[in-house]
């Protein structure tokens, strides 16, 4: 039997700001992983990535990252994506800083 497909989100960096962004079900980009589209079908994932890459004029380096469903939307499964959605651990910079300022 084929291995079960791990759900994915599409993530990239914003061209101008350089910060981490996620692709939504509405073909827009969000700064919040919880608002990203969680893709559960393997074939769909490749198509959605192509759709996201159509916006390469304003994003950089889109890729599929493993994720899982959580109570408030997608959550990371790997610590790299956890850092990307939070910020560095030595200073309160990056997304954690932006979220604190909301």
């Amino acid at each position, binding site marked *: 039997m084929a291995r079960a497909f791990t759900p994915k989100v599409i993530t990239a*960096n914003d*061209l*101008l*700001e*350089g*910060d*981490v962004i996620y692709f939504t079900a509405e073909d827009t980009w969000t700064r919040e992983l919880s608002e990203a589209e969680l893709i559960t079908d393997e074939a769909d994932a490749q198509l959605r990535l192509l759709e996201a890459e159509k916006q*390469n*004029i304003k994003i*950089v*380096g889109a890729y599929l990252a493993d994720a899982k469903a959580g109570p408030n939307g997608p959550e990371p*499964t*790997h*610590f*790299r994506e956890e*850092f*990307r959605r939070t*910020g*560095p*651990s*030595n*200073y309160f*910079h*990056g*997304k954690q800083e932006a979220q604190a300022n909301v």
Partner: protein
Amino acid sequence: MYKYNEFDEAFLAERNAQFRAQVERRIDGSLTEDEFKPLRLMNGVYLQLHAYMLRVAVPYGTLNPNQMRTLALLAEKWDKGYGHFTTRQNIQYNWPKLRDLPDMLDALGEVGLHAIQTSGNTIRNTTADHFAGAAADELTDPRPYAELIRQWSTDHPEFQFLGRKFKIAITGSSADRAVIKAHDVGLQVVEQDGKIGFKVIVGGGLGRTPMIGQVLREFLPQADLLPYLESVLTVYNVLGRRDNKYKARIKITVSENGIDTYRAMTEEAFMAIRGQYDGTDQQLLEEIKTHFQAPEFRSAPTDAFDAAYANDPVFRAWADTNLAEHRADGHAIATISIKAHGATPGDASAEQMRVMADLAEQYGYGELRISHQQNVILPHVHKNDLPAIHATLKANGLATANIGLISDIIACPGMDYCALATARSIPVAQEIATRFDELKMEHDIGHLQIKISGCINACGHHHVAHIGILGLDRAGVENYQITLGGDATETAAIGTRTGPGFAYDEIVPAVERIVEVYMAQRESAEETFLETYRRIGMEPFKAALYPEAQKKVA
């Protein structure tokens, strides 16, 4: 130090204008990312985990106060108020915006700094002994040669698309503080029959296949420096592998073909290339040397230093660890630790940069250095000024007395910033430094270098650390391997792995156990960690690190 002439200024201004136009074309969609990426990398612009990163070269580690102030300006105006000094005498800004980068480069250009060839498969910033021009043990100042190499390699048409990046380091002293044996090419200025020349070392490097460089030429006359380097690079460009990124560095080329073949091919290329040099480079070198004349060192008593040293234990502790022997009477080399216990190794705030610039201007003959060990140096200070310097440093969080000690840790940015990283490095460094500060043991432990890399590429030089730490991703969890017995000096050696790695929360206790073994086993307080390790070997450390495995054997 070197001052740009009209040609240099015009070249840099044009290059920056080109980059500004490239950024505009990327933003308006005329350039795709695939087209833009090599262009931005040639100008030091990376895209990291959370943001763009700008890597600015500090050529051969030398800065004047105005350049340091401009680094502070960049940190404050376009970043988050700090900069990160790296293991290759660069400074990195972790949070710039794409639209601001051309302005940042223009500001740097105004003080003769740039980010050219701080990335890409090119000849990178030539690094030098951070005590160059000041060390008591130095034969001659290597920086004029480094500047000559900078001018020759910048935009060199043959070497813009090498198989892989190419790093050169140079020292003018037999005591190697520039890690020349772990560079693609290492140069040591030497003297033979009263003439200056170079010992040329090739094929060193860390990364996934660490190697200590081998001697390619015992003595290369000064006049042959550029044609010979060009020959080394030409052979690499032809012979070096391009089929596999991990086998593309010159260390692999030399190792696969053998040093004798590499030498023979280099000498053959040299025969053809040498004739193309008509002596213009040597005229240029003579002109460059005039920029590096030593300051007029003043003659003065050292009574203020002697009094502070006798009466102020805090000053004395700092002087004992952070000062090095200067070649001029009454002077010292002062290393400013930018590794306060618990702080990020190599980070300096804009305010701290200005303080250091002011100190260099007021007391330091206008010179600053950046070390590959991620500290800042006042290379020329009169000893009588040291009490005042120390007081200012203390008031600005810069007086940590830990140079060469266990908390003077090299750490790459790791997964807190770097897109390539497999684990974090910075918090590990912070926790080790904090722990040993709490134990109040570090002066007793003495000289011990810990170096931490957050991936196999080894920017944190872990292979040549006394205690090296390599952060890996093991099945989705951070895991840290330890190596012991590495050496970054003229007696360079690659460390040996202790065994299986340690989880994030086990790594600090593991380091503590290693240090406990050393403290228990050393013959005297004078025997350093490395000396003890070389005497007793790996086994006692293994026994302490892996008690379970030992039980099974028994």
